[in-house]
């Protein structure tokens, strides 16, 4: 037990989890914005936009996240010299956020689309009947109800995102939890199993409240019909 506690003196475990929370926070924002735009494309009456939305979702949803994140570092940065900042380490951090956002946007899009399916067709017809064209109808009538119907699936995407933020390790983000775990296992072979359990428990502690919150919110926000 004393051995175990020395881990926390040597390694800053909370800071590593904090890095994952930051990755999740920014990726969640960008994925939501991009995912909403993609959902708009997919429900729009314009065939070419529908195609773009569907193509994006199918490409990014079906590509392993590890490949997307690794491409950020090796492809975008290594080959194409794309830099999101001058700071070397922060650049990897931002590229990881980019990869996480692009990947999860596809899932956000599909979650919102499942929310759109909870909105009866009559709502869109009524919106059109009072003279709202596609975008105002989507913004004022369809999407507000769709988001409220999509709280549970969006919560699932967020939970996946929290856990997937560890894949940033594949993108040279050395400060996040799974990277730190790898380092700790390397230097403290005597404590492999406690180290694993520590990180597993850390994620469980972060994820459980998110699950409870989305379950509560999906009930609270459900549109009464």
């Amino acid at each position, binding site marked *: 037990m004393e051995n175990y506690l020395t881990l926390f003196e040597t390694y800053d475990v909370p800071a590593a989890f904090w890095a994952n929370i930051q990755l999740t926070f920014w990726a969640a924002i960008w994925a939501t914005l991009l995912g909403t735009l993609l959902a708009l494309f997919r429900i729009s009456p314009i065939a070419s936009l529908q195609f773009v939305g569907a193509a994006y979702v199918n490409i990014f949803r079906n590509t392993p996240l590890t490949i997307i994140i690794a491409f950020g570092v090796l492809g975008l940065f290594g080959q194409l010299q794309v830099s999101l900042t001058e700071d070397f380490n922060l650049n990897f951090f931002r590229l990881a956020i980019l990869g996480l956002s692009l990947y999860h946007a596809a899932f956000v899009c599909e979650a919102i689309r499942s929310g759109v399916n909870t909105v009866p067709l009559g709502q869109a017809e*009524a*919106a*059109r009947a*009072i*003279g*709202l*064209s596609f975008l105002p109808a989507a913004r004022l009538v369809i999407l507000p109800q769709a988001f409220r119907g999509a709280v549970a699936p969006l919560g699932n995407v967020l939970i996946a995102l929290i856990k997937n933020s560890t894949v940033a390790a594949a993108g040279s983000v050395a400060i996040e939890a799974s990277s730190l775990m790898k380092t700790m296992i390397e230097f403290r072979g005597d404590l492999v199993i406690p180290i694993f359990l520590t990180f597993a428990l850390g994620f469980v502690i972060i994820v459980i409240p998110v699950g409870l919150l989305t379950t509560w919110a999906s009930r609270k926000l459900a549109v*009464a019909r």
Partner: protein
Amino acid sequence: MTSEPQPSTSASSGEPLVSLKHVNKHFGDLHVLKDINLEVARGEVVVVIGPSGSGKSTLCRAINRLETIDDGEIRVDGKALPAEGKALAKLRADVGMVFQSFNLFAHKSILENVTLGPVKVKGMKSGEAKDLAMSLLKRVGVDNQAQKLPAQLSGGQQQRVAIARALAMRPKVMLFDEPTSALDPEMINEVLDAMVALAKEGMTMIVVTHEMGFARKAADRVIFMADGQIVEQATPEEFFTHPKSDRAKDFLGKILAH
């Protein structure tokens, strides 16, 4: 019956407010509208009746292009229905629509349901829109429910709000697509009363309904549809007492038997 049935020619002269010429529509192999020709004059109240599947709802929905048509021409106030986009939205703002299932915006209060169109489509100031909405809600007798959500109202109240929502756009014509078919029997009259009042004020109305009482009381003209065709049209008096076609006689025989 308090009012005399009015002759169908009582509406003002000039070109018809709504005109359909040689309108055809298919749903796959099903020919739902067969060469429909119809003119509705300003201020006229037209009731469309017929067995289910006769195309009457499709006809009603085609007039504000919730259903597209395969060929033919539909004009509202002299203008052909635009294909899509801003022009179509503008036309729809002039055509009020009341649906069978009310379709009130479920996430918005009763008041917001009525003000949304005037504010977002017509650019009315929110204070002005609120006054307009409250006066319309008062007119249909649901002004005391203004702050509630649609799901908190009875079906009859929701449908009256839907009428107020359509009226808030100051439409040139109102379409009613079976407005009382989803209502409990005791709520039908409150909606019909609101519609009769509207008809008396001179609103141009096209009403798809099974309510023969409303047709007798408020219609200038009854159109009988069957199998996608207009089989017969006449004043309510004429139609209900002396239907000409066998289809109409058969239909009336079935619904008026009890």
